[in-house]
């Protein structure tokens, strides 16, 4: 006991600010706070859920030569004079999450801490040869395979030919590989699409739209092609400089985040970091980007359907999940966005992205026969089973109970250690290929690496967190922080020693062979033998219909607007989408790695909303990367074509506004949609993809990678017992990765000096459809913003020239809330007033549109009087309106020919903008 007390004092507690209480389980003094009659509640992780603190503490205690087998952490709460009913409610709504934690009321009585049970091998086969269609469907549902009937029938006829039933491991391998998550079968499938322009039949929708755009651009560029590897590897790769390429990937982790926001976001960012690490021979991650969509955090608690976590809790959990993982990985989170809509209630969206830098000669991988299949990093446990197939299923109020295994917590330090040895092993040339273990676990990772060869795996060799896993569980577990390598035998010893020297476990689990077959064994007994071609090419094509019918356009209800424009401006600034995200941004380390050039927050008080972040990934170089994004779910309610076009425009103009070269921007698409088996829902998606093709080719901006997440719907029973379904708004995130030759030319959006002139670049149209003015005022109708690449491209090029030539002191893109919001943001970020007259705009489109329309391809630019002539000359041929000047009176005023439309102090505007999310 004395030893334990010493350990508690020295290792577990900080005696300057903490005290220790040591006791054996069951001892009375552990349960009492002060001898009162308070109610004690324990909250502890369910067995098998990752507990990083316990793992680290265990190792540290062993380092103390302490004989200890297992460690668990828990939280204790004492309630004094609180009704049991209230305690129960607090436990379920605030203190614990049922999907990963358990609550114990009163004293704790644990029999043991260790997990695991013995496992007796027996080969499981699934008799499907004689099943009826109905039985096949039942098997697919109950086994959580989530395969369609046609797919089940394909498997059935294939095994009938073989003359044997499949093993469970074989069936699972096919279910994982053929899952929507792994194969994107809907969007890469056959689609018959119909809209007002007629019919179009796709053999492979993605290939004929988004991929095709990139192919055409590359062909046009010819020798100047700066794409390196697109839509092939775990992330897209483009050229950066003479020595390095740059890698970019964005993923979603929506369903896990709905159930366990912290763990879902945690493993979401952890997973996407492994994508660049698993691209080519491994890229070094240099920054993260994170975009989230939630229901409004002020949603009344009693309006929540069963099984839904409160949006405020979801938001806090997601932000801390990303924070704790991203910060620990030492990767700066430099870009992001938040969107709010009630339809994200049961189905929040969590997009996580990562940019990496890779030496040019390390950009490709090649597995060879005879290479070892090696797994390194975390151990395999029962966590995350059926994540890949589950992500394709619709969420219901029961999802919490049936899918507990799919919810996980990450351990960032395991991944950080893995990353450290991966980069060292890469530079020493110790392996021939690498990929990450994500959805589908080994089944996907090993299956993909061996796709063009063949592979044999001995599943009992995989290191386990605890005993008792069946061979199939080992094969499909999605336990985090694992990567698979192909290691030539001559490098194995050095590879192993390197890993060991930094405390990383590396294990051979199989061999790549030139057989064209996927063979799995457990203790020498064969448990699967599949034809690689059938695994990767045997899935029957998905055939879908897609319909699009444009909703009728109605005029914007301008008569809904009462009072002066200042009221609407402050309302938009205080709306959640526009309001300051400082609470989130400051929790992320956005400067680690020492390459920060433009931070997400800029201006005289370091708190204005920057358009895009800039980092220098190579510390000895002046070349920079620019990361930004664009998204407009509201436009999608009117027309997803213009939504997609506008999202691309927004992502590009954010990049261009800080100084990126518009001819060197690569973009990514991430579609999050509702139930695409409905022709109308798939129709809106195809329409968005058509816009992606049109705009990307016209702007010569290649898509280099992308991902989709379908069936984002939430179903529940309402109080009358009727089934209700909420589908998310059609949500396309466009992420942009730009480049600047010399970061010293970059500009920020904050006003710099009184006396400077302010111009609007670009054309305002009468486009108030889907606008934030409509959102805050309740006015519906209006035309959704169009995007014209014929104007956008020359505008972006001119802005870029202006920035390179030092003619532009500050530049801000016009987006949510239009001109009025952009002007206000520039003013309070710079701590300087602004006096504008918008007569030059309002005579064409009216005063409301001049201030609040969200037309594309527009910027506000601040230019010194000395540079005005040169700036105007440079912009010749591009719509340009001089609006006024920067003043030192602490006020934003906007007039029309001397008649005041609005005048507000900077304090009032800034307070309206900062107040909503100042948590």
């Amino acid at each position, binding site marked *: 006991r004395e030893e334990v007390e010493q350990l508690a004092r*020295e*290792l*577990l507690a*900080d*005696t*300057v*600010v903490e005290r220790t209480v040591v006791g054996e389980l069951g001892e009375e003094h552990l349960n009492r706070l002060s001898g009162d009659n308070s109610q004690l509640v324990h909250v502890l992780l369910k067995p098998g859920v990752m507990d*990083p*603190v316990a*793992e*680290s*503490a265990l*190792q*540290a205690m062993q*380092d*103390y030569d302490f004989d200890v087998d297992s460690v668990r952490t828990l939280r204790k709460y004492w309630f004094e004079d609180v009704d049991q009913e209230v305690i129960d409610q607090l436990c379920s709504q605030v203190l614990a999450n049922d999907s990963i934690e358990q609550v114990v009321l009163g004293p704790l009585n644990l029999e043991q801490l260790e997990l695991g049970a013995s496992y007796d091998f027996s080969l499981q086969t699934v008799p499907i040869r004689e099943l009826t269609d109905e039985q096949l469907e039942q098997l697919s549902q109950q086994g959580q395979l989530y395969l369609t009937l046609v797919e089940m029938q394909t498997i059935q006829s294939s095994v009938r030919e073989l003359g044997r039933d499949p093993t469970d491991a074989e069936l699972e391998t096919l279910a994982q590989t053929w899952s929507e998550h792994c194969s994107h079968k809907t969007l890469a499938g056959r689609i018959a699409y119909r809209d007002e322009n007629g019919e179009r039949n796709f053999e492979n929708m993605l290939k004929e739209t988004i991929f095709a755009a990139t192919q055409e651009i590359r062909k046009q560029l010819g020798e100047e092609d700066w794409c390196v590897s697109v839509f092939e590897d775990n992330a897209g790769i483009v050229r950066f400089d003479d020595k390095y390429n740059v890698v970019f990937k964005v993923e979603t982790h929506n369903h896990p985040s709905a159930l366990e926001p912290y763990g879902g976001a945690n493993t979401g960012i952890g997973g996407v970091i492994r994508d660049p690490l698993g691209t080519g021979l491994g890229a070094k991650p240099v920054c993260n980007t994170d975009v989230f969509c939630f229901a409004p955090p002020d949603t009344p608690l009693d309006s929540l359907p069963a099984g839904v976590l409160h949006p405020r809790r979801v938001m806090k959990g997601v932000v801390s999940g990303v*924070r704790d993982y991203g*910060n*620990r*990985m*030492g990767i700066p989170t430099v870009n992001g966005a938040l969107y709010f809509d009630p339809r994200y209630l049961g189905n929040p969206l969590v997009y996580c992205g990562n940019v990496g830098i890779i030496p040019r000669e390390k950009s490709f991988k090649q597995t060879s026969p005879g290479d070892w299949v090696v797994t390194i990093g975390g151990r395999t446990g029962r966590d995350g089973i059926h994540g890949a197939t589950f992500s394709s299923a619709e969420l219901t109020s029961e999802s919490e109970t049936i899918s507990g295994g799919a919810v996980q917590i990450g*351990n*960032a*330090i395991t991944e*950080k*250690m893995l990353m*450290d040895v991966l980069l060292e092993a890469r530079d020493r040339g110790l392996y021939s290929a690498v990929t990450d273990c994500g959805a589908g676990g080994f089944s996907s990772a090993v299956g993909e690496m061996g796709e063009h060869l063949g592979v044999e795996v001995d599943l009992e060799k995989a290191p386990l967190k605890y005993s008792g896993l069946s061979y199939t569980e080992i094969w499909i577990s999605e336990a985090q922080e694992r990567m698979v390598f192909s290691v030539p035998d001559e490098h194995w010893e050095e590879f192993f020693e390197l890993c060991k*020297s*930094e*405390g990383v476990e590396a294990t051979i689990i199989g061999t790549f062979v030139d057989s064209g077959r996927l063979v799995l064994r457990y203790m020498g007994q064969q448990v699967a033998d599949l034809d690689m071609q059938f695994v990767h090419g045997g899935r029957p094509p998905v055939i879908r219909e897609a319909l699009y019918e444009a909703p009728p356009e109605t005029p914007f209800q301008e008569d809904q607007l009462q009072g002066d424009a200042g009221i609407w401006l402050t309302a938009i600034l205080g709306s959640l989408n526009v309001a300051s995200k400082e609470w989130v*941004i*400051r*929790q*992320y*380390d956005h*400067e*680690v*790695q*020492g*390459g*920060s*050039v*433009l*931070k997400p*927050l*800029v*201006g*005289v008080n*370091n708190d204005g909303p920057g358009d895009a972040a800039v980092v*220098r990934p190579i*510390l000895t170089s002046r070349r920079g990367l620019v990361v930004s994004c664009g998204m407009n779910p509201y436009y999608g309610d009117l027309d997803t074509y213009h939504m997609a076009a506008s999202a691309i425009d927004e992502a590009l103009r954010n990049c261009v506004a800080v100084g990126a070269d518009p001819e060197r921007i690569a973009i990514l698409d991430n579609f999050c949609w509702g139930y695409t088996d409905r022709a109308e829902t798939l129709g809106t998606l195809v329409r968005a993809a058509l816009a992606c093709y049109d705009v990307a080719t016209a702007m010569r901006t290649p898509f280099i990678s992308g991902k989709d997440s379908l069936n984002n719907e939430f179903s529940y029973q309402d109080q009358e017992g009727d089934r209700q379904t909420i589908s998310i708004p059609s949500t396309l995130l466009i992420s942009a990765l730009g480049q600047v030759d010399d*970061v*010293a030319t*970059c*500009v*920020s959006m*904050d006003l*710099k000096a009184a006396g400077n002139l302010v111009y609007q670049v670009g054309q305002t149209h009468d486009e108030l459809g889907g606008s934030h003015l409509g959102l805050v005022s309740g006015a519906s109708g209006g035309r959704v913003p169009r995007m014209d690449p014929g104007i956008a491209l020359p505008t972006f090029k001119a802005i870029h020239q202006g920035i390179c030539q030092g003619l532009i002191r*500050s530049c801000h893109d016009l987006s949510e809330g239009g001109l009025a919001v952009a002007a206000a943001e520039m003013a309070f970020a*710079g701590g300087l007033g602004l006096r504008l007259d918008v007569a030059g705009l309002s005579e064409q489109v009216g005063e409301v549109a001049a201030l609040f329309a969200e037309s594309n391809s527009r910027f506000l630019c601040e230019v010194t009087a000395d540079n005005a002539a040169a700036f105007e000359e440079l912009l010749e041929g591009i719509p340009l309106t001089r609006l006024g000047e920067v003043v030192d009176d602490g006020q934003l005023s906007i007039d029309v020919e001397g008649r005041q439309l609005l005048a507000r102090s900077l304090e009032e505007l800034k307070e309206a903008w900062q107040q909503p999310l100042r948590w």
Partner: protein
Amino acid sequence: MAKPRVLVLRAPGTNCDRETAFAFELAGGTAERVHINRILERPDIMEGFQVLCVPGGFSYGDDVAAGRILASQIRRHLWQTMADFKDAGKLILGICNGFQVLIKSGILLDEQQDQSAPATLTWNDSGRYEDRWVHLSTDDSTCVFLRGIEQLYLPVAHAEGKFVPSSEDNMQQLASAGQLALRYENANGTGNGDVHFPANPNGSVGNVAGICDSTGRVLGLMPHPERHIDPTHHPRWTREGLKPEGDGMAIFRNAIDFFS
């Protein structure tokens, strides 16, 4: 004269080692990033270095408490090695997590008679991790790293950076010995020690941002000097123009110049 050699210590979860090594090299040193396991295997490799830097990050995940596990490893296995390193007139710098490690291992501040620590770093008053820029002023001290420096503008990025002494007496002693080397300051230097959030970003007692040992050759600080070495690191360089270099460079140069 040969360039001074800097050992930048790496442990699982350390993540500022590359840019910190870069800063030392820019200042004229030769920096090597060395894993803690190599030093545990062969403590004598420390003898070949003049400067030890424990950089920022989350050593061992900051599990249990920030810096605690690495501190306990050093305390148990490298106590004599560290004492020899200090006694040889060499320099030790702990940045952010490195500061947490130095203070919790007992390398930075001498223990009291009952073996308890005279001060610690604990959770920010805000209760969460925050990344923001702070103004700093130096106290009159013998600290080698801060020679010739009166003010600094640097970012902090931490969750557990609140300096708390174990008693008023200890605070007085540290102050009179000139060990409270670096303090958070208001933007314009006013307020006479009355510094509140966010200028004092974590609620540190006495606005203490960094402390040195009694010899002045060991410094621990929460702000990140390696994140302000390039002129474009400054959060307002687009307004205020590019300076020749960032404020943090002076700390690294002082360390290297000490040996020339």
